[in-house]
């Protein structure tokens, strides 16, 4: 139905009904001729009647549907288009990306403000003072390139007056949108009205979310716009990497992340004191169980069973935590990194594989290509 509005047709609006240009074939023309006798035409010209077909300015229009029912039921009629319009509306008021929930949500805050400062270079020189949240956001702003658009969005995010106005209108039970006046109109005009009406409906349906957003944004009202822009960017992309530390959102709905730290290149020695240069990899821990360190890339190491990606690192006497806190995330990551870089004992040849070949008939991983 919306396609009809998009077609730019000349339409008639009467008693909340849309009338579309009548399409013809010989039978329809015959019917029209019998209905619209010259003597009957007078009445129809003077005023609209509740008829299936009306004539206006020598053109025939056929009754379509009620405009308000289209707005009310559009979600069922064309779910895809409705979702598109809904997103457009929510984006206009920065309600789109669950930003408010993410701002309140603990995981991202923990990663950003408690875990990350442990792994990145915060201060120049040897000073080791603890950074405030604002200083961390400043640091992130310096290290990552936040696109210009997010600064504009941050301003809109902080402007809570339109949201307050919407809430007030909904509370006062003001009509969603006044229907356009009766008479001849263009499809494009009606399409614009329809879009605004759907937006008004979306906002009234999202009243709880708007109320929550207003509450959250009031809390954030003292934060600098550039910090809001940084947070919006991080929330949007769900990933970030600074100084070898980073995180990736794995599941947008459940807010699960992989938090990782690059190991950097390192050298291990075998039983015969020969050196093996291991390439960089990302040691990660996920925010969902099991809270064990693993290597994200396809990688081989004496402590990894196979040569593939996402393998847990073999650790002796390691008890994964039951609950993930900032301290435990740091602990698990460090445990994994330490194991890879310093855990292998060439005398004992501990782990799944030995760096030097043992010449036994057990299939094993070969590290010859890493030897230097």
């Amino acid at each position, binding site marked *: 139905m919306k396609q009809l509005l998009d077609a730019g047709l000349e339409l008639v609006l009467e008693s909340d009904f849309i009338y579309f240009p009548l*399409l*013809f074939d010989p039978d329809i023309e015959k019917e029209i001729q019998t209905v619209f006798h010259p003597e009957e035409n007078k009445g129809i010209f003077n005023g609209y009647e509740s008829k299936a077909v009306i004539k206006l300015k020598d053109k*025939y229009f056929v009754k379509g549907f009620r405009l308000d029912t289209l707005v009310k039921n559009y979600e069922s009629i064309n779910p895809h288009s409705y979702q598109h319009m809904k997103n457009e509306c929510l984006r206009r008021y920065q309600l789109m990306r669950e930003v408010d929930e993410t701002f309140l949500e603990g995981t991202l805050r923990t990663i950003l403000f408690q875990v990350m400062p442990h792994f990145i270079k915060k201060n120049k020189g040897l000073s080791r003072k603890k950074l405030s949240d604002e200083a961390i956001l400043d640091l992130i702003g310096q290290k990552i390139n936040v696109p210009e658009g997010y600064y504009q969005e941050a301003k809109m995010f902080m402007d809570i007056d339109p949201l307050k106005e919407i809430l007030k209108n909904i509370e006062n039970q003001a009509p969603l949108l006044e229907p356009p006046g009766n008479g001849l109109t263009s499809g494009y005009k009606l399409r614009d009205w329809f879009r605004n009406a759907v937006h008004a409906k979306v906002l009234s349906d999202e009243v709880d979310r708007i109320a929550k957003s207003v509450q959250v944004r009031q809390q954030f009202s003292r934060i600098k716009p550039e910090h809001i822009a940084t947070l919006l960017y991080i929330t949007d992309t769900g990933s970030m990497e600074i100084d070898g530390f980073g995180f990736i959102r794995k599941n947008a709905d459940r807010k699960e992340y992989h938090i990782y730290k690059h190991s950097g290149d390192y050298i291990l020695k075998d039983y015969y004191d020969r050196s093996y240069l291991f390439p960089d990899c990302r040691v990660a821990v996920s925010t969902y169980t099991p809270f064990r360190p693993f290597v994200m890339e396809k990688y081989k190491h004496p402590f990894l069973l196979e040569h593939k990606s996402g393998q847990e690192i073999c650790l002796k006497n390691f008890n994964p935590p039951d609950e993930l806190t900032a301290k435990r995330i740091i602990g698990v990551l460090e445990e994994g990194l330490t194991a890879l870089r310093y855990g292998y004992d060439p005398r004992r040849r501990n782990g799944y594989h030995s760096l030097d070949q043992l010449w036994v008939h057990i299939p094993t991983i070969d590290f010859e290509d890493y030897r230097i």
Partner: protein
Amino acid sequence: MDIGQMDLLRHIKDHRAKQRQKKPIKPDVFNQISSIVKQYGLKESFLDIFDTVEDHLTPKKVNIYRIKVKTPAVRPLFSLVAEEEYHLTMSIINKVDTPYLIFADSPDEILLCNPLYRLNPALSSETLMHYHFETLFLHECAKRNRMNTNRE
């Protein structure tokens, strides 16, 4: 029940069975022409070409080496068009009063309906369906020329 009643009963049954039978939808001139009008976006000015089309079809002006291929399009079973298109369609149907019109698949073919019908009103529907009207027109012209030469 006598024989007359039996016959009547059978007759009624046969008649009803015939009524229940599916009848194929016959091609309709309006559907065909209105579809062409819609597809090619024809306007009222198209009607003016009818008056001049004969001038362009003199043997000297027609390119006998140009053979057009007919590409029949799938037309809808029922066609509904806007008012202007409807009036144009009806005007075309009134102007081209030949049985060949239903086989026209493009505006050129609509224009060639009358001249072709005048040259040969007995072309079979299969021929009209498979060959472009311009090809048929050239063929008929050539036939006529040959006959004239033979007579001379």
